[in-house]
Protein backbone atom coordinates (compact mmCIF):
# COMPACT_ATOMS: atom_id res chain seq x y z
CA UNK A 1 0.00 0.00 0.00
CA UNK A 2 1.72 3.17 -1.18
CA UNK A 3 0.34 6.14 0.68
CA UNK A 4 3.00 8.63 -0.21
CA UNK A 5 2.13 11.38 -2.63
CA UNK A 6 4.70 13.92 -3.56
CA UNK A 7 3.40 17.03 -1.90
CA UNK A 8 4.82 18.97 0.98
CA UNK A 9 2.99 18.02 4.15
CA UNK A 10 5.00 20.32 6.37
CA UNK A 11 6.84 23.46 5.40
CA UNK A 12 9.03 25.61 7.62
CA UNK A 13 9.77 29.09 6.30
CA UNK A 14 12.57 31.29 7.67
CA UNK A 15 11.98 30.21 11.24
CA UNK A 16 13.79 32.28 13.86
CA UNK A 17 13.58 32.05 17.63
CA UNK A 18 15.49 33.84 20.35
CA UNK A 19 15.53 33.27 24.09
CA UNK A 20 16.63 36.71 25.24
CA UNK A 21 19.81 37.55 23.34
CA UNK A 22 20.49 33.92 22.54
CA UNK A 23 19.66 32.90 18.97
CA UNK A 24 18.14 29.44 19.44
CA UNK A 25 17.07 28.98 15.84
CA UNK A 26 18.11 31.18 12.95
CA UNK A 27 16.49 31.09 9.54
CA UNK A 28 15.45 27.42 9.49
CA UNK A 29 13.87 26.36 6.19
CA UNK A 30 12.58 22.84 5.65
CA UNK A 31 10.02 20.98 3.61
CA UNK A 32 8.82 17.49 4.55
CA UNK A 33 6.87 15.43 2.04
CA UNK A 34 3.81 13.45 2.93
CA UNK A 35 4.44 10.06 4.49
CA UNK A 36 8.13 10.50 5.21
CA UNK A 37 9.89 9.70 8.45
CA UNK A 38 12.34 12.50 9.21
CA UNK A 39 14.71 12.70 12.15
CA UNK A 40 16.12 15.89 13.55
CA UNK A 41 19.57 15.19 14.93
CA UNK A 42 22.09 17.38 16.64
CA UNK A 43 24.14 17.95 19.80
CA UNK A 44 22.36 19.21 22.89
CA UNK A 45 21.76 22.93 22.74
CA UNK A 46 21.24 22.99 18.99
CA UNK A 47 17.59 23.95 19.32
CA UNK A 48 16.15 20.70 17.94
CA UNK A 49 13.64 20.27 20.76
CA UNK A 50 12.64 23.93 20.52
CA UNK A 51 12.16 23.41 16.80
CA UNK A 52 9.83 20.46 17.39
CA UNK A 53 7.90 22.35 20.05
CA UNK A 54 7.38 25.22 17.64
CA UNK A 55 6.04 22.82 15.01
CA UNK A 56 3.76 21.41 17.71
CA UNK A 57 2.48 24.91 18.44
CA UNK A 58 3.74 24.75 22.02
CA UNK A 59 6.23 27.56 21.56
CA UNK A 60 5.91 30.90 19.81
CA UNK A 61 8.21 32.11 17.03
CA UNK A 62 9.97 35.45 16.57
CA UNK A 63 9.86 35.26 12.80
CA UNK A 64 8.87 32.79 10.12
CA UNK A 65 6.00 30.43 9.70
CA UNK A 66 5.02 26.77 9.87
CA UNK A 67 2.64 25.53 7.17
CA UNK A 68 0.83 22.21 7.30
CA UNK A 69 -1.16 21.11 4.26
CA UNK A 70 -1.05 24.69 3.04
CA UNK A 71 -2.35 26.20 6.29
CA UNK A 72 -0.13 28.27 8.58
CA UNK A 73 -0.36 27.11 12.20
CA UNK A 74 -1.08 29.31 15.17
CA UNK A 75 -0.81 27.00 18.17
CA UNK A 76 -1.51 23.33 18.89
CA UNK A 77 -3.88 21.68 16.44
CA UNK A 78 -5.67 18.43 15.73
CA UNK A 79 -3.48 17.95 12.65
CA UNK A 80 -0.44 17.29 14.85
CA UNK A 81 0.20 15.22 17.92
CA UNK A 82 3.15 15.07 20.22
CA UNK A 83 4.97 12.21 21.90
CA UNK A 84 6.97 13.60 24.80
CA UNK A 85 9.82 12.10 26.78
CA UNK A 86 9.00 9.98 29.84
CA UNK A 87 6.18 10.43 32.32
CA UNK A 88 3.67 12.18 30.13
CA UNK A 89 0.82 9.88 31.11
CA UNK A 90 -1.77 11.16 33.54
CA UNK A 91 -1.04 8.91 36.54
CA UNK A 92 -4.67 8.79 37.71
CA UNK A 93 -5.88 7.49 34.37
CA UNK A 94 -5.70 3.87 33.25
CA UNK A 95 -3.99 2.84 30.02
CA UNK A 96 -7.32 3.02 28.22
CA UNK A 97 -8.27 6.40 29.72
CA UNK A 98 -4.88 7.80 28.75
CA UNK A 99 -5.17 6.46 25.22
CA UNK A 100 -8.50 8.17 24.61
CA UNK A 101 -7.54 11.47 26.32
CA UNK A 102 -7.26 13.30 23.01
CA UNK A 103 -10.54 11.82 21.79
CA UNK A 104 -12.21 12.87 25.04
CA UNK A 105 -10.95 16.41 24.52
CA UNK A 106 -12.31 16.54 20.98
CA UNK A 107 -15.51 14.79 22.09
CA UNK A 108 -15.17 11.81 19.74
CA UNK A 109 -14.57 8.87 22.08
CA UNK A 110 -17.70 7.03 20.98
CA UNK A 111 -16.90 7.50 17.28
CA UNK A 112 -13.27 6.47 17.51
CA UNK A 113 -13.47 3.80 20.18
CA UNK A 114 -12.81 0.92 17.79
CA UNK A 115 -9.78 2.63 16.31
CA UNK A 116 -8.37 3.35 19.76
CA UNK A 117 -8.82 -0.32 20.69
CA UNK A 118 -7.10 -1.38 17.47
CA UNK A 119 -4.25 1.02 18.25
CA UNK A 120 -3.77 -0.42 21.72
CA UNK A 121 -3.56 -3.83 20.10
CA UNK A 122 -1.10 -2.48 17.52
CA UNK A 123 1.22 -1.11 20.20
CA UNK A 124 1.00 -4.44 22.01
CA UNK A 125 -1.02 -3.43 25.05
CA UNK A 126 -4.23 -5.42 24.63
CA UNK A 127 -5.20 -6.72 28.03
CA UNK A 128 -3.53 -3.82 29.85
CA UNK A 129 -6.45 -1.39 29.41
CA UNK A 130 -7.22 -1.19 33.12
CA UNK A 131 -3.62 -0.85 34.35
CA UNK A 132 -2.39 2.39 35.84
CA UNK A 133 0.88 3.97 34.59
CA UNK A 134 2.73 3.12 37.82
CA UNK A 135 2.13 -0.57 37.05
CA UNK A 136 3.85 -0.30 33.67
CA UNK A 137 7.51 -0.40 32.65
CA UNK A 138 9.11 2.60 30.92
CA UNK A 139 8.80 0.93 27.51
CA UNK A 140 5.12 0.14 28.04
CA UNK A 141 4.43 3.73 29.08
CA UNK A 142 5.96 5.00 25.87
CA UNK A 143 3.74 2.56 23.96
CA UNK A 144 0.73 4.18 25.61
CA UNK A 145 2.08 7.65 24.75
CA UNK A 146 2.40 6.54 21.15
CA UNK A 147 -1.11 5.11 21.10
CA UNK A 148 -2.48 8.33 22.62
CA UNK A 149 -0.75 10.42 19.96
CA UNK A 150 -1.95 8.20 17.13
CA UNK A 151 -5.50 7.91 18.48
CA UNK A 152 -6.35 11.45 17.39
CA UNK A 153 -5.34 10.43 13.85
CA UNK A 154 -2.98 13.35 13.23
CA UNK A 155 -1.50 14.41 9.88
CA UNK A 156 1.94 14.80 11.42
CA UNK A 157 3.39 12.85 14.34
CA UNK A 158 5.95 14.75 16.43
CA UNK A 159 8.28 12.81 18.74
CA UNK A 160 10.71 14.43 21.16
CA UNK A 161 13.39 11.91 22.15
CA UNK A 162 10.69 9.47 23.21
CA UNK A 163 13.12 6.67 24.03
CA UNK A 164 15.85 8.68 25.72
CA UNK A 165 14.94 7.57 29.23
CA UNK A 166 14.82 3.87 28.36
CA UNK A 167 17.65 1.41 28.90
CA UNK A 168 19.64 0.39 25.83
CA UNK A 169 17.90 -2.93 25.15
CA UNK A 170 14.39 -1.58 25.63
CA UNK A 171 15.31 1.31 23.43
CA UNK A 172 16.26 -0.96 20.53
CA UNK A 173 13.07 -2.96 20.95
CA UNK A 174 11.03 0.24 20.93
CA UNK A 175 12.77 1.43 17.77
CA UNK A 176 11.71 -1.68 15.88
CA UNK A 177 8.26 -1.43 17.41
CA UNK A 178 7.95 2.19 16.34
CA UNK A 179 8.85 1.24 12.77
CA UNK A 180 6.36 -1.63 12.78
CA UNK A 181 3.62 0.69 14.05
CA UNK A 182 4.62 3.47 11.69
CA UNK A 183 4.53 1.13 8.66
CA UNK A 184 0.86 0.72 9.49
CA UNK A 185 -0.36 4.00 8.06
CA UNK A 186 2.93 5.80 7.38
CA UNK A 187 2.11 9.15 8.84
CA UNK A 188 4.49 12.00 8.25
CA UNK A 189 6.79 11.88 11.27
CA UNK A 190 9.32 14.23 12.82
CA UNK A 191 11.57 12.51 15.35
CA UNK A 192 14.05 14.42 17.50
CA UNK A 193 17.04 12.50 18.82
CA UNK A 194 20.71 12.91 19.63
CA UNK A 195 21.55 9.30 18.81
CA UNK A 196 22.92 8.84 15.31
CA UNK A 197 22.12 5.14 14.94
CA UNK A 198 18.54 5.73 16.08
CA UNK A 199 18.10 8.47 13.49
CA UNK A 200 19.58 6.39 10.67
CA UNK A 201 17.63 3.29 11.60
CA UNK A 202 14.24 5.00 11.71
CA UNK A 203 14.39 7.67 9.03
CA UNK A 204 14.01 8.37 5.35
CA UNK A 205 15.99 11.54 5.91
CA UNK A 206 18.09 12.91 8.76
CA UNK A 207 18.14 16.66 9.25
CA UNK A 208 21.36 17.64 11.00
CA UNK A 209 21.21 20.72 13.17
CA UNK A 210 24.27 22.78 14.02
CA UNK A 211 24.32 24.91 17.14
CA UNK A 212 25.08 28.47 18.19
CA UNK A 213 22.93 29.51 16.55
CA UNK A 214 20.66 26.53 15.82
CA UNK A 215 20.34 26.00 12.10
CA UNK A 216 20.05 23.25 9.51
CA UNK A 217 23.56 22.10 8.65
CA UNK A 218 22.79 19.32 6.22
CA UNK A 219 20.13 16.83 5.20
CA UNK A 220 21.21 13.22 4.72
CA UNK A 221 18.93 10.92 2.77
CA UNK A 222 18.90 7.36 4.11
CA UNK A 223 18.48 4.87 1.27
CA UNK A 224 17.92 1.71 3.24
CA UNK A 225 15.12 -0.69 2.25
CA UNK A 226 12.01 -0.99 4.40
CA UNK A 227 10.90 -2.85 6.42
CA UNK A 228 14.14 -2.68 8.35
CA UNK A 229 15.07 -5.52 10.71
CA UNK A 230 17.25 -4.64 13.70
CA UNK A 231 20.11 -6.58 12.06
CA UNK A 232 20.36 -3.85 9.42
CA UNK A 233 22.31 -1.90 12.04
CA UNK A 234 25.24 -4.28 11.47
CA UNK A 235 25.36 -3.92 7.69
CA UNK A 236 28.23 -1.94 6.12
CA UNK A 237 25.76 0.39 4.43
CA UNK A 238 24.19 1.37 7.76
CA UNK A 239 27.57 1.85 9.41
CA UNK A 240 28.68 4.08 6.54
CA UNK A 241 25.70 6.35 7.18
CA UNK A 242 26.49 6.52 10.88
CA UNK A 243 30.16 7.31 10.19
CA UNK A 244 29.23 9.93 7.63
CA UNK A 245 26.86 11.70 10.01
CA UNK A 246 29.30 11.40 12.90
CA UNK A 247 31.95 13.21 10.83
CA UNK A 248 29.44 15.94 10.03
CA UNK A 249 28.63 16.66 13.65
CA UNK A 250 31.94 15.72 15.28
CA UNK A 251 33.29 19.26 15.21
CA UNK A 252 30.15 20.63 16.79
CA UNK A 253 29.99 17.96 19.49
CA UNK A 254 33.63 18.13 20.55
CA UNK A 255 33.84 21.91 20.52
CA UNK A 256 33.73 23.46 24.01
CA UNK A 257 30.07 23.88 24.80
CA UNK A 258 30.02 25.64 28.14
CA UNK A 259 31.21 29.05 27.14
CA UNK A 260 29.98 31.18 29.99
CA UNK A 261 30.16 34.94 29.95
Amino acid at each position, binding site marked *: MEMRSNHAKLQVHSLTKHFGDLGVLVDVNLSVENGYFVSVLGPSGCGKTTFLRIVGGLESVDAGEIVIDGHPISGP*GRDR*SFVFQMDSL*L*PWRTVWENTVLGLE*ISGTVSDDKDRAMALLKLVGLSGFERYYP*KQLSGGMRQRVNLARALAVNPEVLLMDEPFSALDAQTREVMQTELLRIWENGRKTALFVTHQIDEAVYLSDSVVIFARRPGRVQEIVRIDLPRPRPLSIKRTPHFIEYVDHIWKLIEKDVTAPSNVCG
Partner: protein
Amino acid sequence: MLSGVHILSRARNRSVWATTPQLSRRALSFISVAVGLAAWELIGRFLVANSLFLATPLQAVEALGNMWIGGELQRHIWSSTQEFVIGFLIGSASGIAIGLAIATSRNAAAIFNPWVAGLYSTPIVALAPLMILWFGIGIWSKVAVVISVVVFPVMVNTESGIRATSPHLIEVARSLCATRWQIFAKVSIPSAMPYILAGLRLGIGRGLIGVVIGEFFGARAGVGYLIVQSAEAFNMPAMFAGVIIFAAAGIGLTAAFQALEHWLLRWR
Protein backbone atom coordinates in the same frame (compact mmCIF):
# COMPACT_ATOMS: atom_id res chain seq x y z
CA MET B 1 37.10 -21.98 33.07
CA LEU B 2 38.68 -19.31 35.25
CA SER B 3 36.40 -16.39 34.48
CA GLY B 4 36.67 -14.76 37.86
CA VAL B 5 32.94 -15.24 38.47
CA HIS B 6 30.89 -18.21 39.56
CA ILE B 7 27.36 -18.90 40.73
CA LEU B 8 26.84 -19.53 44.43
CA SER B 9 25.05 -22.78 45.10
CA ARG B 10 22.20 -21.68 47.38
CA ALA B 11 20.76 -18.63 49.03
CA ARG B 12 21.01 -18.79 52.80
CA ASN B 13 17.87 -19.39 54.81
CA ARG B 14 16.25 -16.24 56.06
CA SER B 15 15.43 -15.77 59.72
CA VAL B 16 12.11 -17.11 60.89
CA TRP B 17 11.38 -13.76 62.53
CA ALA B 18 11.73 -11.93 59.25
CA THR B 19 8.67 -13.69 57.85
CA THR B 20 6.16 -12.30 60.37
CA PRO B 21 7.28 -8.85 61.47
CA GLN B 22 3.92 -7.26 60.71
CA LEU B 23 1.99 -9.84 62.64
CA SER B 24 4.17 -9.57 65.72
CA ARG B 25 4.04 -5.74 65.60
CA ARG B 26 0.28 -5.81 65.41
CA ALA B 27 0.26 -8.08 68.49
CA LEU B 28 2.55 -5.58 70.19
CA SER B 29 0.08 -2.73 69.52
CA PHE B 30 -2.78 -4.82 70.83
CA ILE B 31 -0.92 -5.71 74.00
CA SER B 32 0.01 -2.04 74.51
CA VAL B 33 -3.65 -0.95 74.43
CA ALA B 34 -4.77 -3.83 76.62
CA VAL B 35 -2.10 -3.07 79.23
CA GLY B 36 -3.00 0.62 79.18
CA LEU B 37 -6.70 -0.06 79.74
CA ALA B 38 -5.96 -2.58 82.47
CA ALA B 39 -3.68 -0.08 84.25
CA TRP B 40 -6.39 2.58 84.01
CA GLU B 41 -8.95 0.14 85.43
CA LEU B 42 -6.64 -0.86 88.30
CA ILE B 43 -5.60 2.71 89.15
CA GLY B 44 -9.26 3.85 89.12
CA ARG B 45 -10.25 0.95 91.31
CA PHE B 46 -7.45 0.83 93.90
CA LEU B 47 -5.23 3.95 93.77
CA VAL B 48 -7.55 6.87 92.95
CA ALA B 49 -10.64 5.15 94.20
CA ASN B 50 -12.59 8.38 94.24
CA SER B 51 -15.49 8.48 91.80
CA LEU B 52 -15.48 12.29 91.85
CA PHE B 53 -12.19 12.42 89.89
CA LEU B 54 -11.88 9.29 87.84
CA ALA B 55 -14.08 6.61 86.37
CA THR B 56 -12.66 3.28 85.24
CA PRO B 57 -13.16 2.03 81.68
CA LEU B 58 -15.67 -0.57 82.89
CA GLN B 59 -17.71 2.08 84.70
CA ALA B 60 -17.73 4.25 81.59
CA VAL B 61 -18.95 1.36 79.48
CA GLU B 62 -21.62 0.60 82.04
CA ALA B 63 -22.74 4.25 81.93
CA LEU B 64 -22.90 4.02 78.15
CA GLY B 65 -25.18 1.00 78.40
CA ASN B 66 -27.48 2.60 80.94
CA MET B 67 -27.84 5.84 78.99
CA TRP B 68 -28.54 3.86 75.83
CA ILE B 69 -31.29 1.90 77.53
CA GLY B 70 -32.73 5.12 78.93
CA GLY B 71 -32.74 6.57 75.38
CA GLU B 72 -30.95 9.82 76.26
CA LEU B 73 -27.68 8.74 74.62
CA GLN B 74 -29.34 8.39 71.21
CA ARG B 75 -30.71 11.92 71.52
CA HIS B 76 -27.24 13.33 72.26
CA ILE B 77 -25.58 11.36 69.45
CA TRP B 78 -28.25 12.39 66.95
CA SER B 79 -27.86 16.05 67.85
CA SER B 80 -24.06 16.01 67.51
CA THR B 81 -24.23 13.97 64.31
CA GLN B 82 -26.52 16.52 62.68
CA GLU B 83 -24.23 19.37 63.70
CA PHE B 84 -21.16 17.60 62.42
CA VAL B 85 -22.57 16.33 59.13
CA ILE B 86 -24.29 19.56 58.08
CA GLY B 87 -21.34 21.69 59.15
CA PHE B 88 -18.78 19.41 57.52
CA LEU B 89 -20.65 19.25 54.21
CA ILE B 90 -21.17 23.01 53.97
CA GLY B 91 -17.65 23.78 55.26
CA SER B 92 -15.86 21.40 52.91
CA ALA B 93 -17.96 22.34 49.89
CA SER B 94 -17.26 26.04 50.40
CA GLY B 95 -13.61 25.32 51.24
CA ILE B 96 -13.16 23.47 47.93
CA ALA B 97 -15.04 26.19 46.01
CA ILE B 98 -13.07 29.08 47.50
CA GLY B 99 -9.78 27.16 47.15
CA LEU B 100 -10.47 26.56 43.45
CA ALA B 101 -11.40 30.21 42.99
CA ILE B 102 -8.22 31.47 44.69
CA ALA B 103 -6.03 29.12 42.66
CA THR B 104 -7.54 30.11 39.32
CA SER B 105 -8.47 33.78 39.60
CA ARG B 106 -6.16 36.58 40.68
CA ASN B 107 -9.16 38.69 41.66
CA ALA B 108 -10.51 35.95 43.89
CA ALA B 109 -7.04 35.58 45.40
CA ALA B 110 -6.90 39.31 46.10
CA ILE B 111 -10.33 39.16 47.77
CA PHE B 112 -9.82 36.07 49.91
CA ASN B 113 -6.10 35.92 50.66
CA PRO B 114 -5.97 38.63 53.37
CA TRP B 115 -8.77 36.84 55.23
CA VAL B 116 -7.13 33.48 54.84
CA ALA B 117 -3.80 34.84 56.05
CA GLY B 118 -5.44 36.45 59.07
CA LEU B 119 -7.82 33.69 60.03
CA TYR B 120 -5.95 30.50 59.10
CA SER B 121 -3.73 30.48 62.14
CA THR B 122 -6.30 32.09 64.44
CA PRO B 123 -8.02 29.57 66.73
CA ILE B 124 -11.43 30.09 65.19
CA VAL B 125 -13.12 28.07 67.93
CA ALA B 126 -12.59 31.21 70.02
CA LEU B 127 -15.55 32.59 68.11
CA ALA B 128 -17.83 29.83 69.43
CA PRO B 129 -19.43 32.01 72.15
CA LEU B 130 -20.25 34.59 69.48
CA MET B 131 -21.88 31.93 67.32
CA ILE B 132 -24.07 30.86 70.25
CA LEU B 133 -25.07 34.49 70.70
CA TRP B 134 -25.95 34.87 67.03
CA PHE B 135 -27.55 31.52 66.25
CA GLY B 136 -28.92 30.44 69.62
CA ILE B 137 -28.40 27.20 71.51
CA GLY B 138 -29.99 24.94 68.87
CA ILE B 139 -27.92 22.98 66.37
CA TRP B 140 -27.25 25.90 64.00
CA SER B 141 -24.74 27.68 66.22
CA LYS B 142 -22.72 24.45 66.34
CA VAL B 143 -23.11 24.00 62.60
CA ALA B 144 -21.63 27.48 62.21
CA VAL B 145 -18.66 26.61 64.45
CA VAL B 146 -18.01 23.41 62.48
CA ILE B 147 -18.19 25.27 59.16
CA SER B 148 -15.72 27.88 60.35
CA VAL B 149 -13.12 25.31 61.45
CA VAL B 150 -13.53 22.98 58.46
CA VAL B 151 -13.43 25.56 55.71
CA PHE B 152 -9.82 26.71 56.18
CA PRO B 153 -7.79 23.49 55.93
CA VAL B 154 -9.92 22.34 53.00
CA MET B 155 -9.53 25.67 51.22
CA VAL B 156 -5.77 25.94 51.76
CA ASN B 157 -5.15 22.36 50.65
CA THR B 158 -7.35 22.71 47.57
CA GLU B 159 -5.48 25.80 46.52
CA SER B 160 -2.01 24.30 46.94
CA GLY B 161 -3.16 21.13 45.19
CA ILE B 162 -4.27 23.04 42.11
CA ARG B 163 -1.05 25.04 42.15
CA ALA B 164 1.05 21.90 42.39
CA THR B 165 -0.29 20.55 39.08
CA SER B 166 2.62 19.52 36.88
CA PRO B 167 3.14 22.09 34.11
CA HIS B 168 4.26 19.24 31.89
CA LEU B 169 0.92 17.42 32.19
CA ILE B 170 -0.88 20.68 31.44
CA GLU B 171 1.25 20.94 28.31
CA VAL B 172 0.33 17.38 27.35
CA ALA B 173 -3.35 18.35 27.46
CA ARG B 174 -2.60 21.58 25.61
CA SER B 175 -0.86 19.64 22.84
CA LEU B 176 -4.10 17.68 22.43
CA CYS B 177 -6.01 20.95 21.97
CA ALA B 178 -7.64 21.02 25.41
CA THR B 179 -9.47 24.21 26.34
CA ARG B 180 -8.70 26.00 29.62
CA TRP B 181 -11.76 24.41 31.18
CA GLN B 182 -10.78 20.93 29.95
CA ILE B 183 -7.28 21.36 31.36
CA PHE B 184 -8.85 22.33 34.68
CA ALA B 185 -11.31 19.45 34.77
CA LYS B 186 -9.11 16.69 33.33
CA VAL B 187 -5.68 17.63 34.69
CA SER B 188 -5.71 20.15 37.55
CA ILE B 189 -8.61 18.76 39.59
CA PRO B 190 -7.61 15.08 39.49
CA SER B 191 -4.01 16.06 40.17
CA ALA B 192 -5.14 18.10 43.21
CA MET B 193 -7.25 15.22 44.58
CA PRO B 194 -4.63 13.91 47.03
CA TYR B 195 -4.32 17.40 48.52
CA ILE B 196 -8.08 17.98 48.66
CA LEU B 197 -8.64 14.63 50.37
CA ALA B 198 -5.90 15.37 52.91
CA GLY B 199 -7.65 18.68 53.62
CA LEU B 200 -10.95 16.91 54.16
CA ARG B 201 -9.29 14.46 56.52
CA LEU B 202 -7.93 17.38 58.57
CA GLY B 203 -11.44 18.85 58.42
CA ILE B 204 -12.92 15.74 60.05
CA GLY B 205 -10.71 16.10 63.11
CA ARG B 206 -11.28 19.82 63.40
CA GLY B 207 -15.02 19.48 62.85
CA LEU B 208 -15.30 17.04 65.76
CA ILE B 209 -13.45 19.50 67.99
CA GLY B 210 -15.83 22.21 66.73
CA VAL B 211 -18.84 20.15 67.84
CA VAL B 212 -17.43 19.64 71.34
CA ILE B 213 -16.39 23.25 71.86
CA GLY B 214 -19.64 24.60 70.41
CA GLU B 215 -21.70 22.42 72.72
CA PHE B 216 -19.57 23.40 75.73
CA PHE B 217 -20.68 27.00 75.29
CA GLY B 218 -24.38 26.39 74.99
CA ALA B 219 -26.64 23.56 73.89
CA ARG B 220 -29.73 21.60 74.77
CA ALA B 221 -28.37 18.26 73.65
CA GLY B 222 -25.29 16.64 72.16
CA VAL B 223 -22.38 14.51 73.30
CA GLY B 224 -20.30 17.59 74.14
CA TYR B 225 -23.22 18.88 76.20
CA LEU B 226 -23.41 15.49 77.94
CA ILE B 227 -19.73 15.82 78.86
CA VAL B 228 -20.10 19.29 80.42
CA GLN B 229 -23.30 18.37 82.25
CA SER B 230 -21.78 15.20 83.67
CA ALA B 231 -18.60 17.00 84.70
CA GLU B 232 -20.57 19.67 86.51
CA ALA B 233 -22.53 16.95 88.31
CA PHE B 234 -19.29 15.01 89.07
CA ASN B 235 -20.76 12.09 87.17
CA MET B 236 -17.44 10.76 85.96
CA PRO B 237 -18.68 7.52 84.33
CA ALA B 238 -21.12 9.50 82.11
CA MET B 239 -18.44 12.08 81.30
CA PHE B 240 -15.96 9.40 80.22
CA ALA B 241 -18.76 7.76 78.24
CA GLY B 242 -19.05 10.99 76.24
CA VAL B 243 -15.29 11.08 75.69
CA ILE B 244 -15.36 7.47 74.51
CA ILE B 245 -18.06 8.33 71.97
CA PHE B 246 -15.99 11.17 70.52
CA ALA B 247 -12.88 9.01 70.47
CA ALA B 248 -14.78 6.27 68.65
CA ALA B 249 -16.25 8.79 66.22
CA GLY B 250 -12.80 10.23 65.49
CA ILE B 251 -11.17 6.84 65.00
CA GLY B 252 -14.07 5.47 62.97
CA LEU B 253 -14.49 8.49 60.69
CA THR B 254 -10.77 8.81 60.06
CA ALA B 255 -10.42 5.10 59.29
CA ALA B 256 -13.43 5.16 56.97
CA PHE B 257 -12.11 8.24 55.25
CA GLN B 258 -8.67 6.70 54.85
CA ALA B 259 -10.26 3.69 53.19
CA LEU B 260 -12.11 6.03 50.81
CA GLU B 261 -8.88 7.92 50.14
CA HIS B 262 -7.04 4.70 49.48
CA TRP B 263 -9.66 3.69 46.95
CA LEU B 264 -9.87 7.06 45.22
CA LEU B 265 -6.09 7.31 45.01
CA ARG B 266 -5.53 3.69 44.00
CA TRP B 267 -3.53 4.97 41.02
CA ARG B 268 -0.72 6.12 43.31
